[in-house]
């Protein structure tokens, strides 16, 4: 069963909540960035599919370089000080097909997360990225911990 009351987010969604809520998602080559402020118990998660906005579709958070700044903005709007933010990143698996076929999307998704978080000077305190497994994660804002399980097989 879902541990407590968990909000499930899909690709292109951002959710910011406060303890004791929890946020969950399932990742393949997608990446989810979890941000947390220990002082206020406010935390948020995004879930993006591709690293970069393609310049023509809507600037939706299915792109990493839109989703991460938007998540940070949403946290700031809730009154969180950026200096108190900590990040955890998950996902970015390479799928079964050969690396040349999937354009190394997982890798790029991870790179974007690291690069943007570095720019905002938000430390990455935990991560589980890359490799070939899909992941199910649940971000518990109560204790700022992320529960992670690998999925057996991934379609993405």
């Amino acid at each position, binding site marked *: 069963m879902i541990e407590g009351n*968990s909000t499930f987010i899909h690709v292109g969604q951002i959710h910011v909540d406060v303890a004791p809520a929890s946020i969950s998602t*399932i990742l393949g080559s997608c990446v989810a960035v979890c941000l947390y402020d220990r002082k206020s118990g406010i935390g948020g998660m995004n879930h993006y599919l591709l690293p970069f906005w393609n310049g023509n579709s809507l600037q939706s*958070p299915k792109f990493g*370089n839109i989703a991460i700044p938007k998540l940070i903005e949403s946290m700031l709007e809730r009154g969180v000080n950026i200096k108190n933010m900590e990040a955890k990143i998950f996902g970015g698996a390479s799928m079964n097909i050969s690396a040349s076929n999937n354009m190394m999307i997982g890798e790029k998704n991870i790179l974007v997360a690291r690069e943007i978080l570095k720019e905002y000077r938000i430390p990455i305190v935990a991560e589980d990225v890359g490799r070939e497994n899909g992941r199910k994660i649940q971000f518990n804002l109560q204790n700022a*911990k992320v529960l992670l399980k690998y999925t057996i097989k991934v379609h993405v």
Partner: protein
Amino acid sequence: MENVANKENMGDELAFLSKKILELNKKLIDSEKAKSRFLSLVANKLNNPLTAILGIIPHLKIIDTKENELLFELVCKEVSNLDFKIQNLVMASEIESGNIDISYALVEPLEIIDEALESLKHLIKEKNIEIKINSSIKQKVVTDPKKVYTIVKNLISNGCKYGFENSVIEIDLDIKDLMFVIKVKNQGDAPKVNYKPEIFTRFAKDADGKHGLGIGLSVVREICERLDGTIDYEGEDGFVTFVVRLSLDESMVDSQAYGSNEFLFESFDDAIEL
């Protein structure tokens, strides 16, 4: 040994190029930020008063003269047109803010089409367009009714706007290979663009400079993708057909890897904690 070195080189290069792309993309996003801000402003500031106006209009008393009736109809037409445009902007703004949520329900497709046609009746009447609906769907389908409504309303409205007067719009509904297929065919010229994707790009002009707000089809494409579907069009012999395919396999829609339902049946007992 050489392979390892090659792999490392490739990794370095990927990192370098990704950083470059990120830099350039940031400039692009900055230059487009004004549009996004405008979008959310319009969506927020215009939506509420318009909803109020829409609610008030039916209660207005018409003093019984022919002229008043015509004026009243004109007001209704303009307001419903405005409402449609604003709803598109609201949806675009929701998508951009990451607040869009897909909620599934058992849906009768024909009801959605009827609802869309009802709200577009002024436009249809104005151009004297005949609507033909062919549906081979006998059962209800599981999809997000509000999103499908937005898709069909945009496609029919475009069909009316860019189609010829006194012509026919054909709407086909079908289920094929676990996909819910919606086709909207109108008589008219295919959009004149250099590249197909341009037609689904927000605020893009077509080659003739004729264009609407440039938001409808970009919203439609985005919604289609959220419903794990696609949109495309083809134009031939004076007909344009837009084809939408939406996945009916919910487990694929919920998440690209696995259905969110998996959460319901499996605990996190032996999960790793990070």
